[in-house]
């Protein structure tokens, strides 16, 4: 075998790595570009603000947008406090014992459960067992359990980034543990926790499988009225019109995909920029 000049081999390998990075990122940018290019023409105020008509071939996607927003906001309202408390327990109170190890293992595994299995679970427990029916609340609860590990993990890392010395300073003044957490640790961890929450909202807005049997409906002639209503949801709507309805006008499908994509990407961008901003002006 010929031994390559190390300098040359470095140059070659770097090119290869660069090529791999392009291969990883470029197609996704291309996908986004295709959707924007084909979907932009469908976007109009009417498309965003009216009901679908004539078997969804004309009209807008308002009920789907509102449905997704209501499911997602219910989910985050449930999951955020529980997740933050769990993170506080793990980061501030938990000792290094068996229970803590089991909790960590449980979080890791919750994070890995396939989304469709969450859908099954939601169907079993919320729709059937608790008799909530196929409804916003059943879907939201399903999504909130699915998001729990993500919220816990991000909240925990933002709590962990608050220097230990702040806790010591507060505790040494005779302030109790909970008061220290409440008035010193939490205020400084809030930006990180909120960034994590926004990223979670973005992620669950695009989830389809968990709401498939718990909340989503093919078509609902009215806007969501209570949390016990079945609703249309944007990702499910996209799935339906792109696979189940033949001869669907292409620009409506692209338009729906664009709205969903923009919703998700805008929220993610906000979260990412917020994180950069808070990191820069962090006081310690």
């Amino acid at each position: 075998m010929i031994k390559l000049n190390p300098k040359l081999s470095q140059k070659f390998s770097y090119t290869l790595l660069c090529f791999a990075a392009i291969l990883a990122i470029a197609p996704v940018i291309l996908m986004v570009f295709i959707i924007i290019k084909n979907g932009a023409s469908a976007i109009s105020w009417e498309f965003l603000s009216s009901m679908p008509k004539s078997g969804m071939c004309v009209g807008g996607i308002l009920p789907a947008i509102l449905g997704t927003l209501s499911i997602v906001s219910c989910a985050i309202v449930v999951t955020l406090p529980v997740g933050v408390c769990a993170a506080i327990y793990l980061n501030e109170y938990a000792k290094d014992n068996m229970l803590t190890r089991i909790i960590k293992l449980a979080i890791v595994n919750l994070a890995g459960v396939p989304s469709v299995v969450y859908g099954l679970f939601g169907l079993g427990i919320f729709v059937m067992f608790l008799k909530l029916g196929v409804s916003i609340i059943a879907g939201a609860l399903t999504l909130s359990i699915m998001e729990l590990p993500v919220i816990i993990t991000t909240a925990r890392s933002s709590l962990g980034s608050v220097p230990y010395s702040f806790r010591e300073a507060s505790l040494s003044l005779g302030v109790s543990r909970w008061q220290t957490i409440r008035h010193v640790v939490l205020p400084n961890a809030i930006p990180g926790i909120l960034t994590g929450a926004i990223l979670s909202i973005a992620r669950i807005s695009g989830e389809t499988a968990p709401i498939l049997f718990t909340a989503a409906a093919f078509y609902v002639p009215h806007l969501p009225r209570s949390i016990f209503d079945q609703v249309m949801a944007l990702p499910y709507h996209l799935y339906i019109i792109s696979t189940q309805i033949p001869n669907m006008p292409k620009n409506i499908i692209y338009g729906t995909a664009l709205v969903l994509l923009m919703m998700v990407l805008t929220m993610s961008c906000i979260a990412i920029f917020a994180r950069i901003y808070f990191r820069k002006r962090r006081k310690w």
Partner: protein
Amino acid sequence: MVDKIKIENLSCYYNKKCVLESLNLNVVKNEILGVIGPANSGKTTFLRTLNRMNDFDITYSRKGSVYLDGDNIFDIDAENLRRRVGMLFAMPIPLPMSIYDNITYAPKRLGLVTKKVDLENMVESVLRDSSLWDEVKDRLGASAMKMSGGQQQRLCIARVLAINPEVILFDEPCSGLDPISTAKVEELMVELKEKYTIVLVTNNVKQASRVSDRTAFFLMGKLIEVDKTDKLFVSPKEKETEDYITGRFG
């Protein structure tokens, strides 16, 4: 001469390893007790036992008793103990909030002072006591993180004064400061002993000789010698003490 703190047969361990061995020592009311010794001699462990800050370390365990005004500190409520025995750390740790909020933080949480007027008066008085008032009176709302190191350490002193403690523990309070700031903090300690009892842990032998009334010398987890400062520095009884203060080791 009233004993404020009385330590009887105190031994401390980390992971079962002994770092402080059967210590017997007392701290007299309104004195500055200097504690000197090389690194790993158990000084900081000793100090953090006095306000039970070591309770948060799960590897830590101890035997023996410490009496504060006759009460065993391991029997009384730890949070109340820490209110009575304030602590200053090696590096100044202002909380990430304004100067004003740093001082009012603990009194508010503990419910010591609640009215706004009282809080304002209290802030002024502790800032005067820590000779910081003239420097910061116009910017009480500014972030404490933006002050200089010396100012931050004096703010931390003011913060401790605000909870009206009986004893103040200083854990090498000048190790991160320049000579001028150090002089100011030392001056302050001497003023404070009028009202408070002070334990000063330092690895700067000269600092102990400058400010403390009595000095204790720790080595490898044992108390070697404790005496009036001028006596200890002029004619130490033990050979190790002499070697350390004359700079032969440590």
